[in-house]
């Protein structure tokens, strides 16, 4: 819903992750606490918004494995489940919101 550019402008409170697209195939990836990238949101480093800058800076320094890192909001659901924080991020994680052509 909000482009990364606008997300940067808008102050994000609460819990966040750092996300990007994997260089080789464009897949959505999340930064882990040990400075890797994962496609599994549950394995992402979830930090409070003020601490995200450091995580983002390290992700930005890693320009080869992933492209265009930015801070995205997440929601914490019961049982420590991590969910995308807005529709745009939900679509990035789950794909388009309709059945793709040719898929029955």
């Amino acid at each position, binding site marked *: 819903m909000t*482009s990364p550019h606008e997300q940067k402008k808008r102050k994000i409170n609460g819990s966040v992750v750092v996300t990007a697209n994997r*260089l080789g*195939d464009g897949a959505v990836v999340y930064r882990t606490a040990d400075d890797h990238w994962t496609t599994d949101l549950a394995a992402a480093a979830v930090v409070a918004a003020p601490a995200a800058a450091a995580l983002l800076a390290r992700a930005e320094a890693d320009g080869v494995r992933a492209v265009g890192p930015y801070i995205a909001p997440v929601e914490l659901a019961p049982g420590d489940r991590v969910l995308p924080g807005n529709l*745009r991020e939900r679509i990035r994680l789950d794909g388009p919101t*309709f059945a793709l*052509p040719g898929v029955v």
Partner: protein
Amino acid sequence: MYRYDEFDQALVEQRVSEFRDQVRRRLAGELTEDEFKILRLMNGVYLQLHAYMLRAAIPYGTLSSDQMRGLARVAQRYDRGYGHFTTRQNIQFNWIKLEEMPDTLADLASVGLHAMQTSGNCVRNITTDQWAGVAADEFEDPRIWAEILRQHSTLHPEFSFLPRKFKVAISAAAHDRAAVKVHDIGLRMVRDGAGEVGFEVIVGGGLGRTPFIGKTIKPFLHKRDFLSYIEAILRVYNQHGRRDNIYKARIKILVHELGAEKFAAEVENEWRAIKNGALALDPAVIAAVAARFSYPNYERLSDNPSALARARSEDRAFAAWFDSAVSNHRQPGYAIVTLSLKPIGGPPGDATAAQMDAIADLADRFSFGEIRVGHEQNLVLPHVAQRDLVELWQQLQMHELATPNVGLVSDIIACPGLDYCSLANARSIPVAQELTRRFRDPALARSIGRLHINISGCINACGHHHIGHIGILGVEKNGEEFYQITLGGRADEDAKLGTLLGPAVRYGEIADVIEDVVEAYVALRQRPEELFVDTVKRLGVEPFKERVYAAR
């Protein structure tokens, strides 16, 4: 069909190997994203929400059956089995890996297709009437001119770094099917008092954040001056266009700020210096390009054969399809057939690899191996013998390509929106899908008549919402999807921007509101033949607004 020469093929192949090396260096970390981004964009490669997207050009919307099979192969081999035809006669593949992009481009090159100038601040794919060369109301084939300009502008050093992207459309028929008035340059072939065919030159049209209908700066341009005059326009733009502000960089802003007259005078000035130089077109050059377009060897047939007449009167389903999808051909006994890529509940403009293969086979059987892509995101078989129409219709039904809704309310133009596009505010495709379900009854759709709904997921207006009879624009309010509605826009020779109906509505309400708008039209029209746009023109949006918002 147009036959490319060896020069084109060599150029395309050279570009693929150059890009292969650039991708290799990027993957190896030798190029940064900033360095690489401009290179990938020059090859039509974008990064969307969840994957890379490749946009390949379909010059003037003409494809051979072999090229269509090539697209099917790409969809199957490198993508998820489908492709999306766009409002600019391009095709987009949504899921291609960067690692496989060079192979994809090589496959496209093997059938004479490429992705050059589908992105970046250059002259983009030049679009025309999808009925070029076959329309009954055409002066002459506009693709010849699109091709002359394509050759001139491809990799033209002076025009590879314009202030902003540059879109040209050419139409050569009385009825404009190429939306020329909303392009940076729109060219309409016209006949002057002496019977000579030339061009009306329209500049500064465009949609996006600041929409404008183009202004005519030259009512009649002789053919010999076609290139020199366009070159003069591009030079004036290159010199005076704003490079300091991306939102003010398109030629439409320059034309608006200078005023059309002053802009025309600048062009005239520039043109005088080059008019009689190397760019003056020799009739032999025009003839040589024209000679590379081949036309089918039509049979001598007569119109409306008896079997067709019988099917139209006896089979209501066939008649409904015929009325929406079949148009007059300039050759007696033939027809132009539009294949709807707008199945009820489907994403507008998408075709699966299986459909592409089927269309290629049907084109071979029924349309001399030729296919067209139109800006409404449908495909066309341009040369079908009328005696074959019933059989073609039966075949199309088997592949879900015979939805009888061409030009009707469920023939919706929609951009990819938030389901794919990283610039989007809101979703477009699911809105279109829901609307097609609301208007799925063919009898209802027919009783509503011609009505174009256009949907964009953000102000960039790839879904041409400003010029939809009903335009829907996705906006964001506090993190939620909202939609603005405009009425009365149109894309044809009477092009007009729509008027805002009222406050934006939520995702969950948009289909209801559009249904109310259509109901209001049915109640307000003077007679069933009065088209939606004409009712809006006669009454303005107020009576619609009253009815639609009163209930809410």
